[in-house]
């Protein structure tokens, strides 16, 4: 099959109509940094390409009633430059800044990174740690799903062929909260993450009042680490607690990746990556500074 039609729309409505019309025969293209390669390799064979990179409506980042909404067609570069993102959400900016190279970040979008379903997607762990919801639209209606349940398998997500991911939203961060992110890449640019960890924290009286942790590149898709979270929540922050949390985390990863290439390394390295991400989150939460 060959692409015989491409559309470039400026209204979300128009895209939804096209999706409704072409369904399985169509593919959405935003930044194109993944799909162009998939097209070249013959891994996807749509008849119709629908370009959403001109949908200004979903290219912005807004704050509405204590929630932050990121349009799915926002590029990593615009996320990095956004004035809407408070300082203690730095983990989100850090994750965006470690995607590929400047050229890729100028084109690639947040929505694309999510919908592509890669376990190594850099922006997913921080969004998971923020308890993000996805706003998904079709021609008739709109639904909201937690990001956590959106991933079905490696490269497979809960998005139907007539649907468009339009927004990613989460509660805005408070002064005593912080989001940290640490990625282990094997070089400083253009590195696919080997492990990434995002940590969301709320500090109160020297305790982890709330803690949410998400891991990337250690399984079929990025996931929350609820066992580690439960272990650390509501406890006084001490070096011993952090050490014990890191060891628990390491055991969980070792079990999850059992028998897979690199499991020994990842379960070891996760300790350092986790502590680094946790340290950044703690620093941001203490600093407040919205």
């Amino acid at each position, binding site marked *: 099959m060959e692409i015989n039609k491409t559309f470039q729309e400026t209204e979300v409505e128009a895209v939804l109509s096209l999706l409704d019309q072409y369904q399985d025969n169509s593919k959405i293209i935003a930044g194109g940094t993944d799909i162009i390669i998939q097209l070249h390799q013959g891994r996807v064979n749509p008849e119709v390409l629908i370009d959403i990179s001109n949908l200004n409506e979903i290219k912005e980042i807004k704050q509405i009633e204590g929630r932050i909404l990121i349009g799915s067609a926002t590029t990593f570069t615009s996320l990095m430059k956004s004035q809407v993102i408070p300082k203690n959400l730095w983990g989100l900016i850090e994750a965006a800044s470690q995607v590929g*190279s400047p050229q890729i970040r100028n084109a690639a979008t947040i929505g694309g990174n999510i919908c592509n379903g890669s376990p190594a997607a850099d922006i997913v762990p921080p969004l998971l740690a923020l308890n993000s919801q996805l706003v998904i639209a079709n021609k008739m209606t709109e639904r909201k799903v937690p990001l956590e349940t959106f991933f079905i398998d490696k490269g497979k997500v809960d998005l139907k062929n007539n649907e468009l991911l339009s927004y990613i939203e989460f509660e805005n961060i408070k002064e005593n909260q912080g989001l940290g992110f640490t990625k282990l890449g094997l*070089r400083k*640019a*253009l590195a*696919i993450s080997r492990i990434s960890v995002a940590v969301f924290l709320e500090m109160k009286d020297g305790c982890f009042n709330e803690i949410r942790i998400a891991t990337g590149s250690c399984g079929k898709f990025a996931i929350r680490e609820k066992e580690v979270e439960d272990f650390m929540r509501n406890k006084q922050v001490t070096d011993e607690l952090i050490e014990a949390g890191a060891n628990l985390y390491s055991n969980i990863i070792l079990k999850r990746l059992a028998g897979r290439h690199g499991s020994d*390394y990842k379960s*070891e*390295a996760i300790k350092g*990556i986790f*502590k680094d991400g946790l340290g950044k989150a703690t620093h941001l939460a203490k600093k407040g500074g919205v």
Partner: protein
Amino acid sequence: MKKRGKGIGSIFYGTGYGNGFPDVSNAIAELLPDGKVAIYVGATEVGQGAKTILSQIAAEVLGIPLQQILFVCEDTATTPDAGTAAASRQTYNTGNAIKIASENLREEIYRLAVEHLKINSKVGLKMADGKVYLNSFPSLAVTFKEIADTFSKQNKRKTLRVEGSFTALTTKMDEETGQGAPYWPYTFSVYGVEVEVDTETGLVEITKAVCAQDVGRAINPKLVEGQIDGGFAMGVGYTIFEDLGLQKGEMKNRRFSNYLIPTALDIPELEKIIIESPEETAPYGAKGIGEPVMIGVAPAILNAIYDAVGVRMTEIPVTPEKLLKAINKAEE
């Protein structure tokens, strides 16, 4: 925890094919009708700057600006064999061949200038800016163009062409004792690097580096620096990144997404020290440094890793995976 360490790696390198293998470069120098000079040589430019420095050598011998040299290479129909762009031999071997061809051309031009100027000796003649003149009476002069014209009239429109050939000294080593003089000349180089090792992830970051490189003579210092920068980056890739992932003879990492080479961000600032100690047998003393600038990088980094975390790595590339394993093993 991040630990820092320093290490050096020093090397010496024998230029050319060595060990008795014939190592010959040939070149042709030609006086063109417009007074420019063409050099024909089979040397290959692979980005190392051979075209530039080989042209500089000819221009220097003939006292003409670089723009007056027409440099023809890589065309087997028109150029004589100058061996491979390998073994860091083009500067030394082909440089010598071009210098000899240019000197032979200079002698021919002097001979023709003596006739043209109706003097009885070439003693006191000089060359500059495409002219031959008598040093004690500079207005007595003849241009390269006039000499080319005269030669062409006397020789049925032919141009003045001369050859030059250089054979490097290389003898076979004694197979029993390993003794002998396999190469000439040798080049010396030292790298110093500082690394930061993350003991929890095994990641190695090169934070600072310096290279002191013996070049004989730097015909083009900027190109020497470029060679050092390139060799260092390749050495860093060789030491800590580039992993074919061979498993039972099969390459697992066969794309640039998993066969990693360093990016600009992975390469720290490199201080370059050019050591000039002219080699008697080399063209203007210059020796090649293509390979030498890469060789010392790995031992320097491995020594720095040892200094940082006390672990001797004996296999490259030192991937974070291998290093973390070794660090943990050493701690047990």
